[in-house]
């Protein structure tokens, strides 16, 4: 039997692959090493220190940023997971004009650049507030502003599409004859759904939720557009420190976030693996 020619002879793909992996990790490695470097600017090694981590934890703004970020990510994840899962069921179960439009609406946000989604939502909020604030002032004496609420709305909107796509993928892999078998064996529709369909697609829902959570934690561009003044999230904090702060402290923060990322990816891989 003849072996594949290309893999036998070609060294090039292997080289590119490993070179890319090195390319991916060198900047991260530099950051990790510098987070323990006594020298503020990096570059030369001036001895081992934990001082940047200590400085990071003693900054009260970071705790405020972390709290806001977690509140936003939690609410956005729950809402986006519910909306996205319902959406995936509708897309999977019905095939008609309505669902074609529905699919377009869910898919399009994925291919619109962040900055356009950010500015478009800012425009909507500015116009909406200009319209309702005079009314609210007269009737209730309150005023709506950009802030945590507008950030949450924006995050739900972009997370929804990702959840819908992940859950839809899982539904397409699910063998619906199992559901019919459950009906034949005497389960009612609700039982069959709850005991057969839900457990089968649960890993997809969880993966979608986790993806939402990380996307929400991660987002800077859209958040910054709809944040207004004074709502601090972790990415806004990082951006501010990158522009005007101490780079050594961000090194330390980066290492902590990298560890969180490694753990998250590990959990997601485990969730998606049991599919096979």
């Amino acid at each position, binding site marked *: 039997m003849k072996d*594949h*020619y*290309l893999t036998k*002879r070609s060294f090039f*793909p*292997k080289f*590119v*692959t490993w070179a*890319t992996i090195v390319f*991916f990790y060198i*900047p*991260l490695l*530099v950051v990790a090493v*510098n987070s323990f470097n006594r020298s503020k*600017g*990096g*570059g*030369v090694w001036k001895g081992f220190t934990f001082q940047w981590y200590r400085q990071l934890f003693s900054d009260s703004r970071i705790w405020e940023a972390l709290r806001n970020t977690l509140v936003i990510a939690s609410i956005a994840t729950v809402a986006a997971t*519910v*909306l996205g899962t*319902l959406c995936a069921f*509708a897309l999977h*179960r*019905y095939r008609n004009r*309505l*669902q074609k439009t*529905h699919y377009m*609406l*869910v898919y399009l946000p994925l*291919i*619109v*650049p*962040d*900055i*356009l*989604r950010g*500015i*478009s939502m800012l*425009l*909507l909020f500015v*116009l909406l507030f200009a319209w309702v604030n005079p009314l609210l002032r007269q009737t209730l004496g309150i005023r709506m502003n950009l802030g945590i609420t507008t950030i949450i709305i924006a995050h*739900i*909107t972009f997370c*929804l599409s990702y959840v*819908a796509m992940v859950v839809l993928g899982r539904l397409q892999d699910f063998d619906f004859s199992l559901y019919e078998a459950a009906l034949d064996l005497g389960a009612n529709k609700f039982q069959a759904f709850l005991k057969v369909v839900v457990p089968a697609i649960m890993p997809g829902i969880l993966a979608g939720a986790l993806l939402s959570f990380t996307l929400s*934690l991660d987002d*800077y*561009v859209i958040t910054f*557009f709809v944040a207004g003044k004074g709502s601090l999230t972790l*990415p806004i904090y990082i951006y501010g420190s*990158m522009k005007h702060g101490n*780079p050594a402290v*961000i090194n330390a*923060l*980066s290492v902590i*976030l*990298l560890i969180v*990322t490694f753990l998250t*990816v590990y959990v997601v*891989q485990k969730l998606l693996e049991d599919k096979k």
Partner: protein
Amino acid sequence: MKNSTGKKLNELCLTAPSMIWLILWFVIPTVLVFLMAFKPVDPWGGIGSGWTLQTLRDLSNPNYPEIVVRTLLLGVGSTAISILIALPLGYYLARVSKKLRDLLLLLIIIPFWTNFLIRIFAWKVLLHAEGPLAHFLTFIGLLKPDATLLYNPWAVLAVMVYSYLPFAILPVYASAEKFDFSLIDAAQDLGATRLQAFFRVFLPGISRGIWTAVIVVLIPALGAYLIPDLVGGTASELIGDKIAQRTFIDRNLPHASALSALLMFVVMIPIFFVVFFTGSRKSITGTRHSRGVKQK
């Protein structure tokens, strides 16, 4: 009859929540971008009343053509480089043992999940005037002391490729994994050289993955704002930077809208092109593939 209304009601209950949400917070805002480009600005940074063409006329700013061209060049450049790297990589991933492949995929996915700002920041540290790369290049005499590698279009290109490459690798790999590699053997048995087999059998076979990769890299690259903002400096501003500046510094929302509408067009053109192109391509590869299977 009753059953079918029940079914309709079921469908509506499943469809309405996400559909209404998306119309409210995605469709309406997107339409607003185009409408606001025809509004005047008011002196308090809000949107004035009435309609005007002045905002569109302001787009004839002499700096803009250069910025649009730079956005296109960097977008196309970073996409081309990402695809060129993703092709051999996807090929290699599809051919190695499952164990090694899972490890490599994990190593590729991790940067993909890492905070975007942190990834850009890592490059800032790396390219900084006092950073390791500058030290090394000064040491071997390639760089003048105290010169920075940051704040030029090449830094933007490097960081764009770094950030978007995982987006390109995953769809190319997904297609390569489904590709029937015995077709390459067949081509070589029939007298094709290795490169011919790669270009005329493998590439058409995974064209769908390649076009997906083009879209998922090109779009964020054209809309890039953070990367040029953080590592680019004033000489490498892109459309995205201008939109942010008009919004936050000048408080001129109509102007920012007009620029956004422009960017929307710039982004939509390649998408329509690619969708059209892949649509016609798919049938070709489809027939090629089935023919290959039959011959086997």
